[in-house]
């Protein structure tokens, strides 16, 4: 049993009933009988939480839908995810939030929390129906995929969302600095002959938005942080006690802009923000260690061939990640970047705290019986064609990873086991 949220790392048994954790028993003291799952040699973790996922429903179900996304999630040990609102149509009304919540309940593999749009149609012009969406169950708000370039609108969004006690997840990108670029701007883009997206595109907007959140009040979360200056700005804001949090993706923790050239300009190395250079990757890893970044989130962004079978500059931004995320974090442990406890925390208590959820993210009596069992010894090779997502756009194809989720339990029920989701 490993639960960094309460400092647990020992042999023992988890007793669950009625969808909740009842007790943690020291080794050999639990009653054995009906409904016992032998997890000998496995790690028992709280169910993983991924707060940044694109499920593409409604509107682009050929890329992913709630069912295929749920299957991919539980295969990766994820029992709670937050789906982003840049669907077609956008999730900017209570009807869409409600529809998704009902669909997620019907599927029942994992908890799909809905992030509503900040602005109507993600256009950055006027507020979406934040209050109605909150009433329908929206967990937070974001225009992810796009920044909120209108600072006045962002101010009002912060103020309004504060009343609802919900945070804004911000895609930080100064569009005029990105200027149509497709990879990180630096030595590699100069050599590769591609237009660049400078690091200041991200950090300058983080700086602006920290000031806005601070002056007008509001809970700010930085999505998919990718730059060294971004980490430094968030670290400094936290030191002043400002309520800000940040997430990082697995691909920004492992890959550099060199991957674009190494892959011969393959579309699966194109994402937004782009893969950055080594100094940025190292700064992100440092941000994981010192607590500046509290969550690893995938920005799981499935795309079909229509979007990716194009020249680099034309193809869509984004890569998948649900099924490889935790195993990649175990590789961070192997590489000595973080310890196992921190790795688990970044997928459980960390994101739960970001979202303000006290009913999950820990193996604690009274909390939801969302669990994830990991076989730490199994070595496997990433092959997207064997995955459950409808899309195959991962840059980690062919990577050998050690440690893999073998069983996922959601509200006390086994939803993934022996390589198969329950539905």
């Amino acid at each position, binding site marked *: 049993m490993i639960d960094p949220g309460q400092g647990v790392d020992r042999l023992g048994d988890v007793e669950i009933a009625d969808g909740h954790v009842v007790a943690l028993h020291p080794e050999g003291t639990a009653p054995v009988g009906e409904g016992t799952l032998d997890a000998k040699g496995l790690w028992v973790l709280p169910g993983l939480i991924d707060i940044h996922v694109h499920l593409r429903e409604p509107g682009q179900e050929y890329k992913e839908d709630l069912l295929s996304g749920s299957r991919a999630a539980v295969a990766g040990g994820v029992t709670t995810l937050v789906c982003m609102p840049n669907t077609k149509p956008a999730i900017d009304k209570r009807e869409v939030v409600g529809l998704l919540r009902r669909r997620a309940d019907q599927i029942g593999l994992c908890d799909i929390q809905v992030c509503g749009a900040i602005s109507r149609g993600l256009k950055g012009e006027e507020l979406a129906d934040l209050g109605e969406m909150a009433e329908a169950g929206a967990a937070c708000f974001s225009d992810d995929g796009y920044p909120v370039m209108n600072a006045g609108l962002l101010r009002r969004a912060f103020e309004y969302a504060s009343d609802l006690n919900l945070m804004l997840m911000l895609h930080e990108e100064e569009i005029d600095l990105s*200027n149509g670029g497709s990879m990180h*701007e*630096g*030595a*590699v*883009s*100069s*050599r*590769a*002959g*591609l*237009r*660049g997206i*400078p690091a200041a595109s991200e950090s300058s907007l983080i700086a602006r938005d920290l000031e806005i959140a601070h002056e007008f009040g509001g809970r700010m979360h930085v999505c998919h942080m990718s730059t060294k200056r971004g980490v430094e700005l968030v670290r400094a804001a936290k030191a002043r006690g400002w309520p800000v949090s940040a997430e990082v993706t697995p691909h920004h923790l*492992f*890959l*550099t802009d*060199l*991957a674009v*050239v*190494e*892959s*011969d*300009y*393959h579309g*699966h*190395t194109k994402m937004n923000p782009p893969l950055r250079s*080594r100094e940025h*990757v*190292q700064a992100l890893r440092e941000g994981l260690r010192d607590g500046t970044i509290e969550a690893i989130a995938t920005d799981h962004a499935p795309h079909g*061939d*229509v*979007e990716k*079978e*194009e*020249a*680099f*500059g*034309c*193809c869509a931004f984004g890569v998948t990640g649900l099924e490889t995320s935790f195993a990649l974090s175990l590789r961070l442990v192997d*590489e000595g970047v973080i310890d196992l406890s921190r790795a688990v925390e970044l997928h459980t208590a960390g994101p739960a705290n970001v979202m303000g959820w006290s009913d999950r993210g820990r193996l604690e009596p009274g909390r939801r019986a969302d669990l994830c069992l990991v076989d730490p010894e199994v070595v496997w090779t990433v092959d997207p064609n064997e995955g459950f997502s409808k899309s195959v756009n991962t*840059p980690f*194809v*062919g*990577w050998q990873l050690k440690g893999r989720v073998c069983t996922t339990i959601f509200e006390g029920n086994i939803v993934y086991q022996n390589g198969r989701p329950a539905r």
Partner: protein
Amino acid sequence: MRGVSGLGQLDSLEGLTNRSGWPHSLFSTDGLPRDAALEIIGTAREMVEVGRRRVKKLPTLRGRTVINAFFENSTRTRVSFELAGKRMGADVINFSAAASSGAKGETLGDTARTLAAMNPDLIVIRHPEGGAPWFLRERVGCAVINAGDGINEHPTQALLDALTLMEQLGDLDGRTIAIVGDVAHSRVARSNIHLLHTLGATVICVSPSTMRPAQMDQSLKAQWTDDLDAVLPRCDAVMMLRIQRERLRESLFPHNREFAIRFGLNPRRADLLPAHGIILHPGPMNRGVEIEPAVADGDRAMILSQVENGVAVRMALQLMLLARGEG
């Protein structure tokens, strides 16, 4: 997709050596071996002679199919490749399409597979986005020549420029060449920097900082300055790049007049070159912007030789890619 390396496994550009695609294709001059470049240029010299004959057609590539796939408007380069293919005896087909995804209702992947199903021996690709030749090659079995991909590379232009320079200057070892203009967004500049470095020349890029490639000292083997007058006296040749109108919108420079004053090649500046110094321009020229008419039409300008050598280089490449290695 080929697997990519994680942090710590590949830490610099120098780990990625030959990106040229040679000898099965030609994507880039980045890493094109010196011997191969000199062989292409040497073969092209022979083709210059062929082009001056009364009967210019060789039977070498008879029965072979070359597709010129142009996803971006181009007359000069397409005509040059078409003429080169026809002079080598190949059947040359021109194919044009719009590039942007969605607009044409077909992905580049589908277009590539469609072209491949016609069993061409060579596809020449011009595309507005960098990397398109690599993308194409992964989906077709035949040879691919990059005829310009976005702001990335235009390797046949660099080879024809090298041939022109060597005709006038001999060996390029130890020579100094200035490249003037929007280096950051120029495929001509990028291919020339790689090839001239391989051939032993020193390259000095001259531009305002807005047109200097990011972290140039770590990425490209060339020097940079914004002072054209200071470098011209030590240059054996100067290459003027075409100023693109659309760059005005990106505020890379205030207006044409100011660019002409700071970076244009006028008669006064041309006289700063040493006596043997020559002038190149890839065309089409903006007379009065990057180059004044008196200079463009003067004795030092090699612009029409470049055009003639372009056909010869493309003949040589088609010959080497298609007729050799088949015993």
